[in-house]
């Protein structure tokens, strides 16, 4: 259900059987082999009891040498490569399903769950309580994906079941900085571009993949020549009520003035397809996969 590179050769895969596997890639003969596996990483009732049932592992995130996984059993596991057992497990971290996880700083992670809450966990602290909880007031819409800004560790983007994209500043308050109405159905994945963080990518159940461009130093780009077709400029409307935001370290995602700031959104898939489930982006390349069992690759993202 989730996949991430651990280092140059190893890939961690999270499975719906509750098993977390580390695969080793052999470039000379282009094969994969299993390097390590934790088979009961996530379960509802443990292997000891008679009615043992496994739970899907929904998200995995790596930061060499640590691997953090979360699952439908509301459990958070901290693994280290080459250690047979989990270093730390937080049981019943959440009473609902944890959908995704990301690192904030190395000892801190952030999880999103199906009652619309973001929880920050600090591994340096003992105990099973989150150090901070953020959520929207109003409808508790489940959140499905989360990604942290590559350079600014306090900026986080989440996507929800109603297709809304929210940008949060975890230092300030418990409310999101901006809420952007995006897709018509669940947003499955959101990614900041690792080297161009002014660009954000989201994919959704409604079969579209959007490229959000918040780079404010580019003059009015002529929208006719953008790659991929349908294009619209969109004003972000912010619901933040922070009066004093530090102007110095501002990221273009946190700018709250609707008149000045415009985000350009482009849809990258030309035809309507079935749900786009997953995407990844690196440099000028973007890969995404759909429910029609097709994988789309583009190598000229910014041309």
């Amino acid at each position: 259900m989730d996949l991430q590179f651990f280092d140059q050769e190893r890939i961690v895969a999270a499975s719906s059987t509750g098993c977390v596997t580390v695969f080793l890639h052999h470039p000379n003969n282009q094969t994969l082999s299993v390097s390590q596996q934790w088979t009961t990483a996530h379960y509802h009732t443990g292997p000891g009891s008679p009615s043992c049932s496994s739970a899907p592992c929904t998200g995995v995130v790596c930061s060499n040498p640590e691997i953090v996984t979360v699952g439908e059993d509301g459990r958070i596991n901290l693994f280290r490569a080459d250690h047979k057992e989990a270093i730390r497990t937080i049981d019943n971290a959440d009473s609902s399903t944890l959908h995704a996880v990301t690192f904030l700083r190395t000892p801190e992670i952030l999880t999103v769950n199906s009652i619309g809450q973001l929880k920050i966990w600090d591994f340096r602290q003992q105990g099973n309580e989150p150090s901070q909880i953020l959520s929207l007031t109003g409808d508790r819409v489940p959140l499905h994906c989360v990604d942290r800004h590559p350079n600014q560790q306090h900026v986080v983007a989440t996507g929800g079941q109603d297709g809304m994209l929210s940008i949060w500043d975890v230092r300030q308050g418990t409310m999101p900085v901006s809420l952007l109405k995006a897709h018509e159905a669940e947003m499955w994945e959101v990614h900041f571009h690792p080297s161009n963080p002014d660009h954000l990518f989201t994919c959704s159940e409604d079969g579209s993949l959007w490229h959000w461009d918040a780079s404010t130093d580019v003059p009015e780009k002529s929208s006719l020549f953008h790659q991929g077709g349908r294009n619209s400029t969109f004003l972000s409307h912010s619901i933040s009520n922070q009066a004093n935001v530090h102007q110095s370290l501002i990221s273009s995602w946190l700018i709250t003035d609707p008149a000045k700031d415009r985000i350009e959104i482009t849809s990258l898939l030309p035809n309507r397809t079935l749900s786009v489930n997953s995407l990844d982006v690196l440099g000028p390349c973007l890969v995404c996969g759909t429910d029609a069992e097709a994988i789309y690759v583009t190598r000229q993202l910014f041309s």
Partner: protein
Amino acid sequence: MEELDGEPTVTLIPGVNSQKKQMCFDWGPGEMLVCETSFNKKEKSDMMPGCPFIHIIRKNEDVYSQILRKLFNESHGIFVGLQRIEEELTGKSRKTQLVRVSKNYRSVIRACLEEMHQLAIAGKDPASDRQFSIQVSSLSAMELIWNLCEILFIEVAPAGPLLLHLLDWVQLHVCEVDSLSADVLGSENPSKHERFWNLVTVLVLQGRLDEARQMLSKEANTNPTSAGMCRILGDLMRTMPVLSPGNTQTLTELELKWQHWHEGCERHLQDGTFASSPHLESLCKIMLGDEAALLEQKELLSNWYHFLVTRLLYSHPTVKPMDLHFYAQSSLDLFLGGESSPEPLDNILMAAFEFDIHQVIKECSIALSNWWFVAHLTDLLDHCKLLQSHNLYFGSNMREFLLLEYASGLFAHHSLWQLGVDYFDYCPELGRVSLELHIERIPLSTEQKALKVLRVCEQRQMTEQVRSICKILAMKAVRNNRLGSALSWSIRAKDAAFATLVSDRFLRDYCERGCFSDLDLIDNLGPAMMLSDRLTFLGKYREFHRLYGEKRFVDAASLLLSLMTSQIAPRTFWMTLLTDALPLLEQKQVIFSAEQTYELMRCLEDLTSGRPVRGEPDAQQLQDDDVEITKVEMLRLALARNLARSIIKEGSLEGS
């Protein structure tokens, strides 16, 4: 009931003793349950049935093939695209669009064919190789039939172009020519190659006269004695009148020219120009359309439809579509020559030549192992407005019936069901009902899959299905002790009853443990609290605890009172609430006003008087009653004291 078209196949169930003939079965959406029984009138049924298992029988195994999977996915895209552009298809461009769609389908079949062919010759193990070879021949037959249907039914080529299309069709499907040609031309001295004349003959049979002429010129170069004959034959080949696409000559003109040319060939034959070279002579006879000469080349022709097209090329090039079946029937008879009987493929092609679409579809349904081919072909032909509404016994027309069968087969697969949904959408009569039945039975192994299913249902306003699926998921969550998930599922389904169940669970946990579990959930209920009374109560009760913890006693007190008076607290919980009021009553400062105290007393009286008389006096019961009685007495005392204090406080002036 119609008679059976063929004998049904017998499948033996492993483990069941088929001699006893004791089985019972039941149909499911795509499969059948079978088990052995032991009903026996004569003997006593004291023996256990031989086989203790229940078997699930599924017919559709193609759905699990790795390569056919691509066929299903790609053709789904083409199908949906076709349905969507239906409204825009008008006038002249309609035919071109439909032909393009047909070519798309065919290219998908060819792609799968290529891939499967690669696998078949990769030679991993003999059993799967054989399996792949069977699939390859099945796919190539499908493409053959589809191509012919495209020419005859969709393109609807008139006399003249018809023959060109048929020639292309044959050239595409008899592909040994290319390998033979590579073989011969690759050798040092092509004209001395043992299969040189085979190559030339087959080129002539396929109407590729330019290439045949080049071959002949090679022969002329190496063999000066036959140079003259080669040149003449080459000229004949060059001057054969053909209808080229851009040509504006009418059919009658073409016919006249062709007749003239034909007579010229005949004259050469009569004069014995090619007498000294049997090869060249037979080539000339072939070009005259001589049936005997053609039949001699049976091996090179390899099938009757090749024979048919060659025959038409060289004897009736301006054949009309309506007359095709005469020639087809006679070609088939001549080619088979009474030695073998026609195979299913031959029957299908013959039905196509006779323009009997229904027969084609019927035969294909029987011969092929899954519904993919007939479903898509029928749908395309339906868009060409070629099928009259041929009502079947079960109320839907043929196109819909086939699409329903195909889509039901897709639902047997754990992930291809999403394609099936779109097919059901485009079946106007029974599609929705079928979808409702199938979608509830998809096994939901992960939440993500469940979300996709729910999205499908919500987009089609299938509220019943949404409710039922959410209920299943919520129940599973409760069983796994994931109360937060259970609550979020009941919120999605707007299921008040289930929300009440979850809240009751929380309250029970509180009573047992004295504290709340999953505070993160209860503290942050938000507007979802309004879904059910019990849920609201839970949220408010938690708020009371919080207020008490923050020492905001007055607010806590009024909240507590409102909980009791507004009737959202369940009766069983009132005692707990009143007990919670005790510390507030015992505080130094007066918290409850006189009014409020009266209310509390009224509630207490309601509670104590309203309790029904229990039947059996239990020891535990008596003890409980003891505790109860003590509690009630303490409450009464506290309330009375509070009442006194509040009356005094309210009666006296401030500031003293």
